[in-house]
Structures are given as C-alpha cells and as structure tokens.
C-alpha cells in the first residue's frame, strides 16, 4: 500500500473528486523495445495532449496542439522536453537519442524516439520524469520488451528510475 503514496497529494481536495469520465488520472505510457540486431531502443511515448500542451505552454503561452499552431515549433519543443524528461544512462554515462516525430490519436499524442547504441551495455538506467513538474500525482508507466518478454514498471515522484537489463 505504501506505493499508493504518490497517487495523491496532500493539499486541497484534489483527488477527492473523481466525477469526470474523461482522463482524470495523470498517466503516461512509454513502450521501449530493445532490438538486439540493430543495437537500438525503439521508444514510443504516449501522453495526453492536454497535459503536454499545458507543459509546452510554459515556453509559449498561446501554443496549441492537435492541430498545431506551429508544427515546427511544437516538434522542437517536444524534442527538447523529451531530452530533459527521459534520461538513459549506464555507469554514469548518458546516451543521446533521436526524436523521430509524433502522431495524434484522439486525445493522445504518441511520440517516437530512437536510441542507437555503439556498444550495448549490460544494463541501462532509465529516469522518466515526464510531467512530474506539472502534476505531483503523475504516474509514468514503462513497458520494456526484449526477446518477446514484456515487463511493466510504474514510475512516480518517489521512484522515477528503473534499471533495464539488456543482456539475454
């Protein structure tokens, strides 16, 4: 039960009210597939458009997503944002990844990132702080897929990181 701690915050009555049938919990999903043959991580992150729009508006107040008020700007802000909010590292060394682009699916934006290893480490550390500075009760689900096996992790303010094993 202690893992529930992160779910709600202490102040006001936030969380007391659950009437909306729309998205009423703050959650993102990131699917990571390790491709051994190409030595790469294929990363697909899903965020609610409303949430990430609110986040990006800290850069530009009147920014709109889906349809984008300025698609080039939105993509570059998303790229910057992901570079800050997702960190892959091994033994203190951080890996860079490429932001390939995004797609909108109803009220969700799906972002595609790719991390190309030169040498594959035995394991990597993923720190996922997507939307943590916006919503204190934000939960980030991570699905890791490797050799047909799938593992799920739930990250939050108290546990923002997880180790992923890349050795068979």
């Amino acid at each position, binding site marked *: 039960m202690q893992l529930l*701690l992160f779910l709600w915050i202490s*102040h*006001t009555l936030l969380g007391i009210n659950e009437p909306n049938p729309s998205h009423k919990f703050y959650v993102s999903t990131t699917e990571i597939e390790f491709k051994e043959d190409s030595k790469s991580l294929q990363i697909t992150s899903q965020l609610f458009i409303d949430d990430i729009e609110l986040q990006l508006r800290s850069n530009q107040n009147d920014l709109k997503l*889906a349809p984008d008020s300025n698609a080039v700007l939105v993509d570059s802000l998303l790229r910057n944002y992901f570079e800050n909010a997702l960190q892959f590292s091994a033994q203190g060394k951080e890996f860079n990844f490429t932001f390939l*682009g995004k797609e909108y699916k109803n009220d969700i934006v799906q972002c595609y990132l790719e991390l190309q290893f030169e040498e594959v480490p035995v394991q990597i550390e993923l720190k996922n702080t997507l939307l943590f500075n916006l919503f204190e009760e934000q939960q980030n689900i991570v699905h890791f897929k490797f050799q047909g096996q799938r593992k799920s992790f739930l990250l939050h303010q108290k546990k923002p990181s997880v180790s992923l094993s890349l050795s068979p």
Partner: protein
Amino acid sequence: MINFSCLRNSTVVILSLTALMLSAQTPQGHTNGNKFRQLYDQFADPNKYHTASGAPGVEYFQQQVDYVMDVELDDEKSKLYGEETITYTNNSPDALPYLWLQLDQNIRKKDAPALEKNGANSAITLSPSSFVSDYVKEPFDGGFNIEWVQDANGNTLPYKINQTMMRVDLPEAIQPGGIYVFKIKWWYNINNHVEGRGRSGYEYFEEDGNKAYVIAQFFPRLCVYNDVEGWQNYQFWGNGEFALEFGDYKVNITVPSDHIMEATGRLQNPKEVLSKEEYARFQASEKSYDKPLLIVTEEEARAKESSFSKKKTTWKYQAKNVRDFGFATSRKFIWERQAVQVGNQKVMAVSLYPKEGNPLWEEYSTKAVVQTLQTYSKFTFEYPYPKAVSVHAKNQGMEYPMICWNYGRPDKDGQYSDRTKFGMISVIIHEVGHNFFPMIVNSDERQWGWMDEGLDTFVQYLTEQEFGETHPEAILGFQKYPSRRGAPQNIVPYMAGDQEFISPIMSNPENVYQLGPNAYAKPATALNILRETVMGREAFDHAFKTYAQRWMFKHPTPEDFFRTMEDASAIDLDWFWRGWFYTTDVVDIGVKKVKKYYYSDTPDANAKERLKEYDYNLDDLPEMVFKIDEDSEMFDPNKIKNNALEGSELLKNHLEKEGISADRIPKYFYEVEFEKPGGLVMPLIVEYAYADGSKERVTYPVQLWRKNDASVKKVITSDKELISVTVDPDQETADINSDNNSWPRKEAPSDFEKFKEKIKG
C-alpha cells in the same frame, strides 16, 4: 474407422500403474479450481428480497423519503442556507430506533479525516502557486453547520455527527410501516469547485465578477436502509459516490432576481420567476420538437452580467420519485429547451451555459441530450422524468436526477479542438446517461462504483456511435464517433499493466488504484465484449433490458445484475463474471503449433519406442495405421501430394472394401495446438486461411477450455492446404499479446516501425 481402443485401454492401465509406482509421496488433493465452476463462493445467497433469478423478491422493500425544503443563496458571501422537513416511511420489517443522514459537505471541514486519507510525499519540483496552496494557504472552511434538528412539533431531537454521517436519535423507534416527520436547519460556505475540484460549488469569473453555481449534496440526506447493508453509512471519503432513497421533493430556492436557474423537477412558478418574454419562449419551447428554443439568449445573458440585482426571487420545483436533488443558478446563464418524444412521453432536453461555453454549447449540448434520451431509452426503458438538463461548468462531469454538470470549453477566441468537442459531447452523454444508472436503476455507488459507471459507460459507447450516425456533420473527418472507451483494444494497455496496481472490478471505489479504467472502462469493455462476442446482440440486449426494467426505481446488487443476465438468456456466464469482475486476469490466447500429418502402415521411431516401452510386439497387434506428423523422421510430403490416403495401403484397401469413395477423404490433415497463457477463458475465434485464397472463420465455444486451461488441440481436415491460422483476427477479445496470435509467427509491425517507415518514405 480404425479401432484403437484395445491398445488405448491397455496403455491407460500401464500408465496408471507406472504413475503409482513412481510417486513416492501420498497424492495431495485440491478444491475445485475450475474456471467454469459456479460462483456460489462469491455470490450472496438468494433470499426473499433478492431472488436467485436476479429479480426483486416477494419481500423486497425500500424506504421512502420525502423532502420539503426552503433554500436561500447568499451570492455575495457564497453561503447557502436551508431548512428541510423530512418524511420518512419505514417499509422495512425492522423497527428503527435512530436514523442516519449523510453530511457530504463535511468532507470539506478543515479537520476532515478525508483530507488525510492519502499518503503524501514532498514534491521534487513545485510551481509557485502550488507552493502557496501547499504550504501557506489557510484551508477552506467548509462543512455543514447544523443549527437544529427538531421533530414535527418543534421539539429538539438529539443527534450525533461522526465525520460525514449524522445519527438522529428518536424518542421511540419507527415501527415497520411507520412514518416519521422531522426537520433540520443548516447552512454552509460554498466552495470554489474550480480551485478545489468539488462535485459541486461555484466558478468565479474574474472578468465580470460573477459566479456560476452548480449545487448538490447540499442538504442532509437520508442514508439507505436495506436488507443488504442495514444502514449504508460507510463514510464519504471522496471516491465512492452516493447511496440514496427515492422520494418526492418540493424545493423552493431563493436567489438574486437576475439569476436563471435549472433544477431537478418541474418548475412550478415559471410565470412568477420569468419575464413576460422569457415566459412566452418557455411555453413555446414545449412544442419545439425539431430544434432548441432559446429562453435566454447570449445577448441577454451578457447584458445581465453587470446588473447584480439586490432583489430576490424564489424558484419552486417539484419532483416525483427521485433519489436526490441538484440545481444550477447564475445571472450568466444562457438557456435553451427542446421537446423530445420518448415513447408516449414528452421530455424536455435542456441546456444551460454561460457565454464562455459558446460557440460549442449552442451547437452540440442539446443535440447530445436528445441522443442520450433516445438511445438509452431504446436499451433500457422509456425515460420516465419530464426533463434532462445539461449545465456547463468548468472541469465538471457530475450527475444528479434530471440535471448534470459538464465540461468542454472553447478557447477565449472561440476556437476549439476536436478533442474538446468530442470530450464535451461524450461527457454530456455520460452524465445525462447517469439518469438511467444510478438515478433510476439505483445501485449503491458508495460500495460499487462500476455498477453505475461501468453500465453507463457501456451505453454511452452505444450512444456515441449512434450520435455519429445521426450527426455526420459533427464527426467530419472521422469514419465513426471516436469513442475513447468501449472498444476491446482500448483496454489492453490497462489490463496488460503492472498487476500490483490493478484491482478487480469488484472492489470498493476507495480501494482501487485507477478508478477510471477500473470502474468505467473495464466493465464497459467487458459488457461490449459480452454483447458482441460472447452472447450476441439479441440475447444480450434482451437480458440487459430485463435487468434495467426489473430494477428500475429499486436498489440492485451486483448479483442481481449477474443473475439476470443469465436468467434472461440461458447462457451460463459465471466464468465470465468470475474472470472479468472478480479477478485481474487477462486474455492471452494464441496458436502454438500447426502440424500436418497422415497415416502410414508402418510405425515411425516414436511409435516403435512406445510399443517397446509397453512391451508390445507389432505382430501381436490388430491391423492398425500409425500417425506420421511433421516432427517424424518418416514424414515425406511427397507421399501425400495428391491424397492423404497415399501414405497407407491398408487404409486404401479398407475403404475400397467398405465401398467408401476416396474423394470423401480430405487431402490434408492438421493438428492445431492453441495455447492460453492468460488467466481468462474466452471463446476461441480462429481464422483459417488456405492456399487458394479462401478463408474460414470458426468460433469455438468458451467451454473448450473447461478441461484444458493451458492449451487445447483441434484437428483440421481440408482439401486445401492450410497456409495460416489467426486467433482473434478482429481484435474483439482484448487479447493483451498479439505476438502469439498467428501461425506462421509473424509479428505485426509496431507503431514505431510503421512510423519510421512512414518518415523514411
């Protein structure tokens, strides 16, 4: 056919002997863990109140609670004052020495335990405004102030408040059949629902200094007393909503004279509270079946924003057979009404919204209300109330009898995205739909969130799809209405998630991790799958309607729903309820192996080994043929190029002797093995594709799994060569893992791969 039984019987004997000899330990027994066993261990026993068929029993009872109230709003100070007279009719077989009432506003008391119900950690990062509300701001001074509780003659009655519950002690117990009248005077500070996210309260509009009120849970309400819980006085902690009795309401509400109001019940004095022109439009709207008529226009509402009348007006409402009462009031409201024919009844579809809701609300709100009344009535019963009102309130989505609050606001420049539009239409359908579940089919929300949210979200899905069909202009650019919940594939990410954070649907709403998917999406999806894949539309629709009509204006339990669905359809569903509602198991069914085979006169190495093992000599056996499959060293595809019989002279001769023509023998024999790594049993839907391009769809009954929970084999014989096998080809079972759904194994390209391909090109 060839008789193997002789050999088989001896084999069985030998095998059992070996098993006995090999087992060093005494065998340990087990209880019945079969997925198809009946739910006797989970279900409450049927009785005279709730029958085994799922209907109300001969001694079913429920209490009647009638309210007469005078309520006054202090707009300036945001306070609400009220005095209520309650008439309690005890239809139970029990004498009641005290009555329990719900004081839901007490969840906003400064010292409410609900404020401390969750653990908290100090945030890593914090916005300056969150810092202020976290560490500096004085908590809101909410909660009921009870002035007095009196009997009908004005004598003080003793009472005791425990958090959100109040016990009123009676001078004498109310006997079965007895009626007791008492009165309560109260007031409370109205909260800002935008800041504190309440189910009711006001929104403050800084630009013009006005407030728009959506008021509910605003008076002490009787708890339910029934045969299931006794008094349902489980505290209000915030997530589990309400359990309420039916009754008749007479409510007078006094507000500033420039306000426009909507509420539960029929307005009794429209002529008094409306201007002459408004009244004429109000009357005319009763006959406007094709489009809504504005009673108050946007222009008129804008003009009133600065009037701040000091005069007061009392709006009078009466409602029959409702479980609650809510109202919305503001001088900012635009007001429109349209008549809808529902069966023999005329119902008014009504929208009430500030100008901030336009241009979205004038376009879609009333349309969504009309569609909801029509579709829900088709699947349940004809809507029995005289009206259904959709009120626009920021961030709200909350339901009361005949009235609900809904979000969906365009940007300040009047623009809105598709998701704002569909979010708004969907929430209106959902909240108006709540009139059916739980306002009329009155389940206990405090205990079972899914019974109203799940059923409502399911019918919401059907309604959204019909809305898309009746309003093609509203879904321009989409093939069908983009429902977020209901389609089986949409629940997969939730069900495939970390088991540590998933609770069964049959959990109290306070104790689940994610109420949205748990109480809304998963049960709605389960019902959709039940309708489309398990029961079929006709059987499902009849059973679902039977449930709704049996429990209309009554208090059903989960068992009443589960039992009725079976009772009205003759389809045993205990396996479905157990799996989908009582566990967190998932669907994962796949095809494991496909093996081609034929029969030969001579045994292969494997068969020889087996014979040797049991000390049989080939010559001792009666005439028989031996299976040669693709794993066998003898397997030779050329042997059966034209006909499966080519592998065996013995078979050919036998058939000739029996006068059976060789073309009656299929050309190809396959053994297909299906696997079920997932805990849920489901009908097995398979598509077989053949070399000539033809396809065959087979649905094996779910009972296929009753003796083989992990894997099961099927034999396919055909004149055409089998080239692929696909399980659940239309993704209708919420299978969480599609990697094993096809033979030969082919992994569908992921979204990632598709996207990468797309940007490459």
